């Protein structure tokens, strides 16, 4: 079985996000970039399938500017076999355009299973997996917390509102990964050394047919200064009064 992991590089969750002077993008100065936390579950799951003897190879694919090579190097150090960067010179919020870039490349590759995060924590669009399902005409199950692969049979547990579902499908298919699926490993020192010897294959691509674009970025409205109502249980009556009379939420 051949696995492809699609991963994205995103700003660290702690990052202080500043809007660039153009008002339409963020300033990357001083930002630490990480592998999207949900992509890490996908990488880890692929490696576990390989360790269990169920997968023969893992290729990680990502897109974005040159800095994304770092994320792919980390994926190599964790244990994927090959990495590919689809290098773009621009940023797009249009996930259909991104899915288009990925689909065009994936169509030329061999795969049985495509793993990716259920969402990226930068634009939070949550669209790529189900869109690729359409573009590649293969099934996709989203928000998966447990994955079993037995030959071409795939059984997953997915999170739904108010509970979970057990779903069966077959390869080739796309699985989008949710927290709970596994605990991603840190790269070992040996892994980091091995990764140094490997190449990040890079192909230049560009977004086509973008329909969704950013007009303007802004910061959220500042919340008004809060107040400390008091200390301990004695303050409860006053809190309830404020919630009813001032905030009018009770």
């Amino acid at each position, binding site marked *: 079985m051949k696995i492809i992991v699609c991963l994205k590089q995103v700003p660290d969750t702690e990052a202080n996000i500043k809007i660039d002077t153009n008002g339409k993008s963020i300033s990357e100065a001083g930002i630490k970039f990480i592998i999207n936390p949900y992509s890490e579950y996908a990488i880890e799951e692929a490696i576990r399938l390989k360790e269990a003897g169920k997968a023969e190879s893992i290729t990680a694919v990502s897109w974005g500017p040159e800095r994304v090579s770092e994320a792919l190097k980390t994926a190599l150090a964790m244990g994927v076999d090959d990495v590919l960067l689809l290098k773009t010179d621009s940023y797009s919020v249009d996930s259909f355009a991104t899915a288009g870039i990925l689909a065009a490349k994936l169509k030329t590759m061999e795969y049985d299973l495509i793993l990716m995060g259920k969402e990226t924590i930068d634009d939070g*669009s949550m669209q790529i997996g189900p869109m690729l399902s359409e573009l590649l005409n293969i099934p996709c199950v989203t928000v998966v917390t447990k994955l079993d692969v037995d030959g071409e049979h795939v059984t997953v547990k997915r999170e739904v509102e108010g*509970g979970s579902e057990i779903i069966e499908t077959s390869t080739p298919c796309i699985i989008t990964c949710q927290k709970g699926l596994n605990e991603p490993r840190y790269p070992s020192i040996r892994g980091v050394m091995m990764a140094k010897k490997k190449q990040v294959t890079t192909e230049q691509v560009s977004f086509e047919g973008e329909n969704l674009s950013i007009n303007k970025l802004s910061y959220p409205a500042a919340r008004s200064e809060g*107040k400390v109502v008091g200390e301990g249980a004695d303050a409860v009556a006053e809190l309830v009064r404020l919630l009813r009379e001032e905030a009018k939420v009770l």
Partner: protein
Amino acid sequence: MSAILVVTELQNNEFKKSSFETVSQARRLADSLGQTVTALVIGSDVKAKAASLGEYGADQVLTAEDTKLENFNPDYYKTIVIEAVKKVSPEIVLFIATLQGRDLAPRVAAALETGLASDCTGLEVVDGSLEIEHPLYAGKVFAKLSLESPVKILSLRPGVFEAKMNGKQAVVNSLELPALESRIKIKEINKTGGDKLDVTEADIIVTGGRGVRSAENFKIIEELATVLNAAVGATRAVVDSEWRPHDEQVGQTGKVVSPSLYIMCGASGSIQHWAGMSGSKCIVAVNKDPEAPIIKRADYSIVGDLFEVVPALTQEIKKIKG
């Protein structure tokens, strides 16, 4: 006249509150764009309740009924939505940004080869075109987006838009069902939460953090939630300790919520947690540490031991609710 199609959602065979919110929003847009509103209801037994969407502004309700449609199957539901799109030729299609809507909308968008603006928190008509607001970087920045495709597909975040009754009557029609085929099979459905209110649907949320100290201690959080008719939320520290299930986690790697009241007990207010709840109208913190970051950011806070304050709060609310 051009139409707006709303793909509604049910939970336990009742409309989710967000279905009413999204239909109301469609009505508002339709009025300023001179369009009509068609709401689509998919399920196994939906005819009887379909007309209630008229009260929120639907001109027409299309029902798609089949035993196969009782539970969400993305392949079946996608086929149904595309059939409805063919039938009403909408210019705008609105989904709800729930797990279900966020699974379904991208499939429909890709099948129609169009862009999709997901998880929108604001929607205005400016000079005849849509101005869409969508949070980026978990709400650290907000983007105003424009969508240029002939069919514009959006999903609206639950709890953000107002559900407004306007007492209209809707015509209810059934959609002729296309052939339904799927490559996935639902083997089992586990409603672990039973009828538990999901944090994304709740108007009030009571969240416990690491300060609650154990799964058993969450009883006091649940008691406060019960008297307030609220959902229970959790920080990641709590979920990682397995005191609460992950579906209750609020934050950057959990759910994004926007209730009118968010009560945080024994949670510090980390940047990642804040990302999930900063859209709450009113934030209350109970924390024993006067220096905890949340004390400065909450609208109202009580400095004190949650094991004292939370039960007292439960009693006080019981009193006023009689």
